[in-house]
């Protein structure tokens, strides 16, 4: 059976999901708090920066081989060093998996405060485990539905709140680059998911040359959508109120039609759970490749128990929540960006040796 299972359209939808679901749920209030009225510019800044990194690393990676990221690292750095370098990357993926479940749990708790968190953790893990068990082909198909529903809900939110928009709230636009850079920290982290994920999924793409263009387009599309939503939020709530509300996009849906908020809740929670599914798959696939296992499926149940128990207790520590932005900054500048830069350097060097012997 062919491993080339991800079509160009599916790759585009994948790049949309990894950004949209998280940013819609988590980022806006944090961003508005950091960047104020210029929050939408922070998104553009973060997106363009990652766009360049993504283009370089993915192109070099495809030039180097058609193998998985783990195999690439082993080929470049050797069996031991290659694996060692990958450990932080794999750990980061596992941590991100937990964080995404946590996002979903937090959102459900926000909408349904009477429900205990443990059940929601388990439900998320069950769906993610089931989705990852079914494999990448199913994940991509389900993702198509998730994105369609979520985009539809975004369209409904904007169109039903159109008369509340006051563009005066966007003014005056003060280009404080320090503020914009601070505001872009969180979206930087989430936009970095695209190159990371595309490097892991490299063996599954049907047409790598087109996928590169498509993923860049996905990045830009996400940027546009998020910028529009951020601008909408600010034009309706203003920057101060927008930074206080925990889920401003969701709150927008409560303003227009009765009951729309619950529908939007369903759409977003569905998309987030799908995202948890492909993070499960990514982590399990990396572990499988790292240990050279024949299948990742036997790891699903232990991984479910591991993520739920670790995530539940880890996120129950209130102190850690207050340090969230610092943890993210550490992730970006200590783990993610250096890892990608290291990969870019290694791929450049190896490609030079390969093509100019």
């Amino acid at each position, binding site marked *: 059976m062919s491993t080339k299972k991800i*079509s160009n*359209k599916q790759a585009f939808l994948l790049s949309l999901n990894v950004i949209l679901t998280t940013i819609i749920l988590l980022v806006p209030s944090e961003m508005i708090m950091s960047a104020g009225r210029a929050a939408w510019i922070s998104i553009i800044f973060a997106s363009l920066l990652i766009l360049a990194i993504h283009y370089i690393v993915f192109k070099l990676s495809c030039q180097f081989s058609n193998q998985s990221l783990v195999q690439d690292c082993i080929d470049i750095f050797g069996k031991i060093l290659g694996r060692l370098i990958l450990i932080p990357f794999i750990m980061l993926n596992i941590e991100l998996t937990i964080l995404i479940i946590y996002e979903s749990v937090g959102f*459900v708790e926000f*909408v*349904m405060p*009477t*429900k205990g968190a443990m*059940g*929601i953790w388990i*439900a998320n893990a*069950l*769906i993610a485990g*089931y*989705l990852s068990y*079914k*494999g990448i*082909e*199913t994940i991509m*198909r*389900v993702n*198509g*539905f998730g994105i369609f529903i979520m985009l539809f809900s975004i369209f409904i939110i904007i169109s039903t709140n159109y008369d509340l928009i006051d563009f005066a709230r966007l003014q005056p636009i003060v280009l404080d680059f320090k503020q914009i850079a601070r505001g872009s920290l969180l979206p930087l982290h989430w936009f970095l998911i695209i190159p990371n994920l595309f490097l892991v999924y490299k063996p599954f793409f049907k047409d790598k040359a087109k996928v590169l263009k498509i993923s860049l387009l996905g990045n830009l599309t996400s940027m546009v959508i998020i910028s529009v939503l951020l601008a909408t939020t600010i034009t309706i709530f203003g920057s101060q109120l927008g930074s206080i509300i925990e889920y401003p996009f969701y709150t927008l849906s409560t303003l227009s039609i*009765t*009951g729309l*908020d*619950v529908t939007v*809740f*369903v759409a977003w*929670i*569905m998309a987030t*759970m*799908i995202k948890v*599914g492909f993070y499960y798959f990514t982590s399990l696939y990396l572990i499988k490749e790292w240990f050279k296992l024949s299948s990742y499926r036997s790891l699903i149940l232990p991984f479910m128990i591991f993520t739920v128990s670790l995530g539940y207790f880890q996120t129950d520590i209130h102190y850690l929540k207050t340090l969230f932005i610092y943890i993210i900054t550490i992730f970006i500048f200590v783990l993610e960006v250096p890892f990608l830069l290291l990969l870019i350097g290694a791929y450049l060097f190896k490609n030079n040796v390969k093509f100019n012997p």
Partner: protein
Amino acid sequence: MSKKMKRPLTIEEKKRKDEEEVLERLEEKYLNDIDINNLKVYSSLEKNLVYLEALFSKASDFNTRKFKLGDEEVKATLVYVQGIVNKGFINDTILRELMIVSRNQDLKLSRSYSNLIDLIEDRLLTMGTIERRDEFTTIIDDMLCGHAVLLIDGYDEAISIPIPTREVRNVAEPETESVVRGPREGFVESIDINLSLVRGRIKTPDLKFESFRLGRVSKTDITVAYIEGIAPQDLIDEVLNRVKRIDIDIVNESGIIEQLIEDDPFSPFPQISNTERPDGVASSLNEGRVSIFVDGTPFVLVMPSVFVHFLQANEDYYQRFFFSSFVRMLRFVAFLVALLGPSVYIAITTFHQEMIPTKLLLSIVASRAGVPFPALVEALIMEIAFEFLREAGIRLPKTVGQAVSIVGALVVGEAAVQAGLVSQAMVIVVALTGIASFMIPAYSFALGVRLIRFGVMFLAASWGMFGITFAVLALLIHLCSLRTFGVPYLSPITPVDWEALKDSFIKVPEWFKNSRPSYLVKDDNQRIASNVKPSPAKGDDEDE
């Protein structure tokens, strides 16, 4: 002293000896499990008859008709199983030919034939199909499927003449798939009639019928039908492989075959559709799908069948596209209502009251005021009562069944509300759900939806909309991973096939449906010629 000479055996003694010999062999067969597949026909008619009579002992419908053949009076016997052969045809044609015409002067001129069987085959029996058999297994199989078998003394071959007959009801409109507009003919229990109904609609030699028998005991005739050049070869091979792999004792209905060849037996969704309509089978074959006909049932299997097929009806193709598209979209909404109706009601009334406009909320609260149960229990009571009524309505005789449905729905429903067991709102929700499930054209698909509904209700009662999302997502994952004969179950939605989407949730005009679904047909998928969009003749426009 005269030496005692060995006396030649009398005819009676010879016959007894033959019988003993055959019985010995039979005993040997049963005791030592000798493979009877290789048991050849004897040249001795007596031996053959003893063997057959022993095999069919205590079978009162087994019949033998002994007679003499031609002027030379060769002994022959026609053996058959009464009731499944056309007795009138045996008496009026076969026996007449063999007993009377075989003495004809003209026929004597043909005695140049060295083999009497050749002569009978060439000059006497006038049936369209006759077959020569030299093994008992095939003879027995033939007899049990409505053949008369002619055994002739001195020949180790027999002639098998197919003259099956069975009381078959007339071709009539199928009760499960009635239409306002469309053909009124439906399949019956005879496979031959069913095949002829399809052949009458597809007049091309490319329409292939591959027939064989299934069932160690039932020996049921099965036919796999497809159009060569349109149906993909790997699909045909896969269907044939799966069907031929079946080793079962009895096949009474096509549903048994369906359960033995489907991709995922644990899925609540059917992966093979069934129909009683020849026009439905003809259209499916023309789309590149494969059908399985089973003798004894009017339900023909069609595969592969994807999700959207179960929400389509044959009549959609006979109506103008506006109405067909509207009805199809209604059916899709009905599917969602049938699946989620009570669950959404439970979730909203239990967890998400803010979704309901205040006036409606007050009226729901008022109607639920006297109800002692939570919404889940209320829904379960009504749903289970509805299932009781539905099942009773189906199993009872038609007239009584209708009465039970009406009495159940009106009297019991009203009484339950008055007794304060359930609220009026819940009665409305359950009734709507029931009606919605009746809108799903495929009964087997609706059954799956009915089952899933109960699971979703429990999740909705525990987790509200989150529980429903959980259930829907789990279903979606299942549907996205499901395949039927290599075709993704959610085709043409995902993977997207734009051309096939024209005939899915909507139905575009006939002239716009250019090709067959590409998820099925790869090569010859041109459906309609270009430039066939209807328009008035030039010059008809009054302005010109």
